[in-house]
C-alpha cells in the first residue's frame, strides 16, 4: 500500500505549491488512473510518490509518504528503488546509456540491486516476454524507435518487480498495439498484488485498466472515485480531460434517440 498524508510540495525557487494537501491511498492490486489538464500536478505527484521529490529533485515537502504503512522519509532513494518503480514519458532518458543490448538494458535495474545472476536472468526473460519484445533482445537500445525504447524502459521497470509502480504517461509514444500490451502487463502485475498508479492522457486506457480514477486540478484532488463514475462524469471536460471513446459514443447514441436496450450493447464485450 502506498499512501500520501496531507502532502504539500513546492519546487525550489517557487512560491506556489505544485501539490496542495493531497491525501490518497493506493491499495495493493489496485490500478489507479491519474488524470488532469497540463500543470495540474500529475508529474509532480509521480515524483513525490516515487520518493524522487524532494530527495533528487529538491524543493520542500510537508506531509508524509507511507510505503506499506511505514514512513518513507528515513529511506534512501536506492532503498525505495526496489519497492517503488517509476517510468517517465520520454523513453530516451530512461535508458541507462551503458547497455550494449536490450537484454542488458532490461537487466540494468536488477543488476544494480545486486540480485543473484539466475534471478536477474529469469526476471529479464519474463519482462521481455510480458511486453513481447524478445526479438529485440540483441538489438542496441539506442537504435530503436521511440515506441520500442519505451517498451524496453517499461520492461526494465517490470524486471525490478517493484511492489508499487508509478507510470507517468508510459504510452505517450506507443502505437495502439504497444499501448494494449502495456495495459495487459499492468493488469497482470496488479493481479499479482502490485499497486499501480498510472498517469495518462489516454482516457480509453484508463477506462480499460483502472478500477479507480483520481482527477487533479491546480495541484489538488478534484475528483476521486470508481473509474466508470469519474470518466463518465459530465464535468470531466471542464477539468481539461477528454472523455473515453465509449462514454462519448454512449452520449452520441443517447442524443440520437437510442434506447436503454440499444445502449446496453456497449457494455457487452467485443467478440
Amino acid at each position: 500500500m502506498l499512501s500520501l498524508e496531507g502532502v504539500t510540495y513546492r519546487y525550489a525557487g517557487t512560491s506556489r505549491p505544485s501539490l496542495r494537501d493531497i491525501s490518497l491511498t493506493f491499495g495493493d492490486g489496485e490500478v489507479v488512473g491519474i488524470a488532469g489538464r497540463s500543470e495540474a500536478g500529475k508529474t509532480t505527484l509521480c515524483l513525490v510518490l516515487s520518493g524522487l521529490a524532494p530527495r533528487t529533485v529538491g524543493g520542500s515537502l510537508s506531509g508524509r509518504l507511507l510505503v506499506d504503512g511505514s514512513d518513507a522519509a528515513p529511506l534512501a532513494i536506492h532503498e525505495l528503488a526496489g519497492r517503488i518503480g517509476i517510468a517517465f514519458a520520454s523513453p530516451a532518458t530512461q535508458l541507462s546509456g551503458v547497455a550494449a543490448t536490450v537484454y542488458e538494458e532490461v537487466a540494468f535495474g536488477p543488476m544494480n540491486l545486486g540480485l543473484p545472476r539466475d534471478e536477474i536472468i529469469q526476471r529479464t526473460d519474463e519482462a521481455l516476454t510480458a511486453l513481447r519484445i524478445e526479438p529485440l533482445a540483441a538489438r542496441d537500445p539506442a537504435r530503436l524507435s521511440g515506441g520500442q525504447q519505451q517498451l524496453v524502459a517499461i520492461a526494465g521497470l517490470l524486471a525490478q518487480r517493484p511492489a508499487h509502480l508509478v507510470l507517468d504517461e508510459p504510452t505517450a509514444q506507443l502505437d495502439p498495439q504497444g499501448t494494449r500490451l502495456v495495459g495487459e502487463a499492468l493488469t497482470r502485475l496488479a493481479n499479482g498484488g502490485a499497486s499501480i498508479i498510472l498517469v495518462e492522457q489516454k482516457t480509453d486506457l484508463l477506462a480499460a485498466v483502472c478500477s479507480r480514477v483520481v482527477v487533479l486540478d491546480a495541484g489538488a484532488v478534484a475528483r476521486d472515485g470508481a473509474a466508470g463514475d469519474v470518466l463518465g462524469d459530465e464535468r470531466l471536460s471542464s477539468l481539461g480531460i477528454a472523455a473515453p471513446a465509449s462514454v462519448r459514443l454512449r452520449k452520441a447514441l443517447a442524443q440520437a434517440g437510442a434506447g436503454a436496450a440499444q445502449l446496453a450493447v456497449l457494455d457487452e464485450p467485443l467478440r
Partner: protein
Amino acid sequence: MAGPSPIHRLNPLTKLLLAAVSTILAVVLGGLVAPAVIVALAVIVPALIAGILPRLLRTALLLSLPIAISVLLVNLLFYPAGREILFQVGPIRATAEGLGFALETLARIGAISGAITLFYLTTPPAELVLDLERRGVPARLAFVAIASVQTVPAMVERAAAITAAQRARGLDTEGSAWKRIRGIVPLAGPVLLGSIAEIEERTMSLEARGFTRPGRRTLLWSPPDSGTQRAVRWLLVAALPAVVLARATGWLPA
C-alpha cells in the same frame, strides 16, 4: 560477446592501454619516424585486421583536421626561430624550420588521433564499463567516463534535430558567415537547456533503478581476457618508463 574481428574481441583494457601508451610515446619520442612507426604498428595494422581502415582514417581526419590546419599555419608562418625562408607574402614569411616543426607536431597529432579513434571504433562503451567494474572501479566512476564520451554525439544529434525544426519554421542558417553566426543564437539555448533537462531526467531514472545503491552490482558477463593479453599489458606498462628514460637521457635519439 563476440566481436567481428580479433581486434574487436580484445579486452577493452588492452585496447585502452594500447591507445594510452601510443599517445604518450608519440608525445615523448617526437620527431617524424617514431610517430610514423606508432601509426603503422599500433593504428594501421590493427585497423586493417579489424577491417575499419577507411572509417578510421575518415574519423581520425575529421577529429584532427581543425587543430592540424591551425598548427600548420601558425608554425609555418609565425615560427619565431625560422631563418630559411620558403616564400614570403607581405610581412609574413614561411620558413623551413617552421614547416619542419609543424610536420613533427602533425605526426604526433596523427598518431594520437589514430590511436584514440582505433579504440573508439573497436570498443563498445558498455564493454569498457563492465570490464572496469569487474576490476573494482566503482560503477559510478565508470558510468561518468562513458557518459562524458557519449555527451558530444548526443549534443550533435540534438543540435541537428533542433536546426531541422527551426529551418522548417523559416530560420535561415545558410548563406554568409554572418547569417550562420546569427543562426547559432536560437540554436544554443534549446540545445543547452534541453541537454540540462535530459541530464536531470536521466539522473532521476538512474536513481529510481537503484544505480546509487552502495556495494557491487551483479554483472551478467564481462569481456574475456587472457594470459597473453595480461602479459602484453604488463609489457606495455613496463616498457613505457624505460622508453621515456631512454629518451630523456639521450640514449634514444629523436
